[in-house]
């Protein structure tokens, strides 16, 4: 192994993964069927086992045909990740992700921080889908408008009222503003669809939310102009905060160095997601929303008005997008077209997590945040890592569609 060129190691690994992964994925379900066993979940197990051990794992799997379960898949996945990391270390031994654990720890923290903010936006989108069955193509524009509402509120408070306030207040105001937008839009445009007034509701929902997206973006452009704006930071002048160093057993992990503003934004996102989960699980209205998402007719019989719940869900969804934007307006430069990429990322996250699943959107956001950060930070060619940032997330997305089309927490259509 030591005599092999790095490129040969990488090429050999890719070939191994492809050949044995494909063989395991095709053959394993057939073996289970041949033995009159339930083949559910065996394709994924076969792929993972093939990729990890090739014939060493596949032959025992085909001989003993154990019952496929998620614990087994998870165990093999972890071993596979460790194996891939070892190969990566052989291929690129000077990579910071191999040589510095503190670097890996800091990049993980960065990925998780941005992941929570991604998740906040995606949770709104998945909530709308879960209740209404509609993908809102205007979600990115609500995110953008939330940022601008917060920016102009903070500016107004500083320059007109003369009382500068922390951007955290901007998040609340943006939430109220975007919720109001949702409350106005849903009864006007989406309710007729749920009342059976629209002949082709699927196409109608796409068109109407797409139209709203264009309207919002171009109206905002004509009002605020094309020049980038940015709110003052949560903790102006703080820059980085250092947490630690941390100890693991007798091993010092080094300090976590985090950007102060991102830490505040991520914390705010965690609090908001927590509040949403509490609302959905512990309040009557929240339970009613969940009931509508499961069975509209049954919810109606129990005294829940599905139309009102639709409106509420849309308003909460747009509110979360707006709050997510407001959380980021002190961190990124804000322009009227900023929502497009964020919306695309949200679609990936909710499919990854499972359409309609709030916990799925949360985990999906964290996964995408982590993968984008770690991919950029560890990619063997450092000069290209950032250019492929979006692609890293899409690779995970494609793998999820391959292994588990319903997403992490998705429900199979009955």
């Amino acid at each position, binding site marked *: 192994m030591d005599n092999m060129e790095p490129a040969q190691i990488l090429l050999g690994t890719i070939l191994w993964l492809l050949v044995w992964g494909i063989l395991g994925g095709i053959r394993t379900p057939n073996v289970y069927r041949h033995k009159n066993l339930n083949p559910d979940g065996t394709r994924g197990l076969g792929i993972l086992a093939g990729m990890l051990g090739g014939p060493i794992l596949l032959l025992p799997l085909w001989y003993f045909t154990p019952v496929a379960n998620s614990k087994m898949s998870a165990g093999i996945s972890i071993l596979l990740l460790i194996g891939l990391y070892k190969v990566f270390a052989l291929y690129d031994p000077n990579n*910071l992700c191999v040589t510095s654990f503190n670097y890996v720890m800091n990049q993980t923290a960065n990925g998780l921080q941005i992941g929570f903010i991604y998740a906040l936006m995606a949770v709104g989108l998945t909530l709308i889908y879960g209740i209404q069955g509609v993908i809102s193509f205007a979600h990115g524009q609500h995110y953008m408008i939330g940022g601008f509402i917060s920016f102009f509120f903070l500016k107004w408070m500083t320059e007109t009222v003369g009382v500068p306030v922390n951007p955290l207040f901007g998040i609340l105001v943006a939430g109220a503003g975007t919720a109001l937008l949702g409350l106005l839009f849903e009864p006007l445009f989406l309710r007729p669809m749920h009342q059976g*007034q629209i002949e082709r509701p699927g196409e109608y929902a796409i068109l109407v939310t797409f*139209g709203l997206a264009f309207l919002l973006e*171009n109206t905002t452009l004509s009002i605020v*102009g094309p020049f980038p704006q940015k709110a*003052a930071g949560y903790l102006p002048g703080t820059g980085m905060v250092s947490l630690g160093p941390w100890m693991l057993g007798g091993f010092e992990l080094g300090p976590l160095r985090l950007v102060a503003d991102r830490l505040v934004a991520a914390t705010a996102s965690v609090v908001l997601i927590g509040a949403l989960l509490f609302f959905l699980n512990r309040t009557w209205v929240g339970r009613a929303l969940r009931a509508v998402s499961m069975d509209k007719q049954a919810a109606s019989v129990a005294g829940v008005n599905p139309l009102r719940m639709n409106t509420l869900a849309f308003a909460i969804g747009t509110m979360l997008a707006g709050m997510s934007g407001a959380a980021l307006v002190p961190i990124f430069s804000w322009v009227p*077209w*900023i929502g497009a990429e964020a919306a695309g990322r949200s679609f990936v996250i909710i499919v990854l997590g499972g359409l309609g699943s709030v916990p799925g959107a949360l985990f999906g956001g964290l996964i995408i945040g982590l993968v984008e950060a770690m991919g*950029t930070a560890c990619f063997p060619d450092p000069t290209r890592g950032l*250019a492929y940032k979006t692609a890293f997330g899409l690779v995970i997305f494609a793998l999820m569609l391959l292994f588990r089309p319903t997403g992490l927490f998705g429900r199979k259509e009955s």
Partner: protein
Amino acid sequence: MSRRLPKFVLFLLILSLALVACGGQQVVEVTRVVTEVQTETVTEQVEVTRVVTEMETVTEEVEVEVTRVVEVEAAKAEPIVIGATGPLSAPGSVGGGIAMQFTAQLAVDEINAAGGIMGRPIELVFVDTQGLPERGTAVAERLIEEDGAVGIVGEYHSAVGLTMIEVCHERHIPCVFSETWNDNVTAAGYAEVFRVAVTSTLVASQQINWLDSLGLEYIVIIAENTDYGVPASEAQVSFMTERGIDSDVYFAELGTEDFLPVLTRIQGGERTPDAIMVLVTGETSYNVEQQMAEIGLAPTEETICVANQVAINAEFWDNVPDGNYCAYLRVGLTPSNYNDITQGVDDAYRAQFDRPAPSYALATYDSVYIMAEAIERAGSTDPDAIIAEIEATDRTLAQGRYYFPYGLNNPVPDDQPAWMWHQWPDAAVVMQQYFEVGQDPDDAAVVFPVAFQTHGTALIPFGTTP
């Protein structure tokens, strides 16, 4: 009624969507409405003439009315269409496109107010390229084929410009580019293509001369993965290699918001860079610069921040509040070198946007004049005649004196780079550096070239005051 209302509002939404989606088409229609209104004023010619007669004893008022008669005469004739392009929607640099659209229209309004060209008004058709190369081809074709443009000016993005030059060449239509820096825009040597902006190589050489004078050894470049960023970074690396300066280039997609992973990677690397150069445009550049400042990567005592040229814009301090001591390339004149035309355009721009006119806005204004006056001198819309007259341009406009030293009658000599073909060679390029938070770019120090230094130094060290 309640069933019809959503349909009606939906119809309005879709209509607005269609209008927005058509982008430039919308602008075309607006422009044509204006032309029609002008044409209607022709019916007032008799009345205006009568007023002239009645007021002939009042000299000043007579002059005003005569001007109006000239305008009306011009409006009577078929307009001459000049096409213009720029990014008016994402992913292009929308701010740049809107600035260019404004000054292009400003120039057209002035020319029409003075009687147009060849007694005919100019109709400006400004179309949105979105910064996308494929749109460049499509809009150039449309401007020529559907709108009947006799010449095209403007464009912000090199990637778009590179596709447009092929159309200009194939259709044999003169094009004057005002902000496409890629060398190959003029290096192709097409008779139809002119440029009144700087080139990547010109800019790179100036930046490298400055960095070399500081004795730097290792420079990191963060470049956008576009037809501007890639060749610009290649030119920089080439110059750096010649001077013995080590360099690494990190590419990013235009529109990237989060640069933290790659910036911390640079920070954790074995070598601390002596400078980080940002070759990324628009709001993306602000994200890079602020993020590298807030993590303490640059500017610092060890690492110089070389911000993108958009650091000159008014919104820089809102977006990069920690960007003090960043240096940047200033393309275009400093206010002390403004002439009356520059001042006039700058005043109009400030009145509209509450900020100074950037170089590309001035260049677009100038390119309209160059095109219009060439048509006037040619006395026809024949492309060969217009091209010959653009080559013969010798005119002082907002950015200074324009001339094109190399062209059909005087090919580029072997000792000059190929991009000097139809290239205006005198674009002002200086390096400036901020040294106070919120500083006006006009007060920032000029640090290079030495002849223009305002504070007697090639670099204001981090944390000091000159």
